[in-house]
């Protein structure tokens, strides 16, 4: 039963990665907004990169989710 408890705690600990992902996502969109307010003409050009950064950062959260699922079920 102790292994089971350790699993639960481990899966919970794996979600700490979300702190970094939250920082990263906020950073991406925050920088995008402040950058596009300074230079609105360049904003559409970098929006593709913003979405790419969003997708790559979101993937880190999902890596954490996969680790949590592996801890719980494998």
């Amino acid at each position, binding site marked *: 039963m102790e292994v089971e408890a350790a699993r639960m705690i481990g899966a919970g600990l794996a979600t700490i990665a979300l702190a970094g992902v939250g920082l990263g996502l906020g950073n991406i969109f925050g920088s995008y907004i402040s950058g596009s307010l300074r230079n609105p003409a360049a904003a559409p050009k970098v929006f593709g990169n913003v*979405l*790419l950064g969003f*997708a*790559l950062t*979101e*993937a880190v959260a*999902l*890596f954490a*989710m*996969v680790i949590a699922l592996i801890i719980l079920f494998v």
Partner: protein
Amino acid sequence: MAAEQGLHIEPMHQFVITRLVEMNVGGVDVSFTNSSLFMVIVVALIILFLTVSMRGRAMVPGRMQSVAELSYEFIANMLKENVGSEGRKYFPFIFSVFMFVLFSNLLGMVPYTFTVTSQIVVTFTLALTVFILVTIVGIIRHGFKFLTLFAPSGVPIFLMPILVPIEVISYFVRPISLSVRLFANMMAGHALLKVFGAFVVGLSWWGGWLPLTFIVGLTGLEFLVAFLQAYVFAILSCLYLNDAINLHH
């Protein structure tokens, strides 16, 4: 909460593979599954889309033809910007991978369908194909010099013992990160939609409206993710190809 009312939700049930036609060749299970069925549907849809929309071959493209030309130019520009003129040779490969991932992601958004890309087997095979192709291209083009990929130039020599293992590991982890990114995105998105769908049913008509509005928003987000993940998969393949062709520096 929902379980107390006797409602049983299974968010992972949608990913279960079932055998449609049992087949066994020499002890290897090669059954035709619902996953294979949807892969066939995806490929058929792509072929149908590209042939039907380009049938007119008009100088001034109509609506369908411009969608097909747009997707062609999208990948052609991506290759030109990230790999350079050398990348044109690899256009058919990148285009096929992009269309396959995009169409299977979008087909998965139709209710009661099976999302092919939510299976780690499928995405890992795709990523491994990209990885092997990139490695072979690099070795053929540069031979022994391809190994300088793991030793960036302009780095102090005493940093090399630390840096080279890191570069080697990050190179060999590529197929894993590429496949898990796509697989986890699709699986998490579809499981999330299912969980919110269960909230709507569980809270019934007086409380289900709030999760229902969430589902509408999430479905929009999932369509964005479906396109973005195909884009990310294609652009990362381009970047890896660029590393192998131009030996980054």
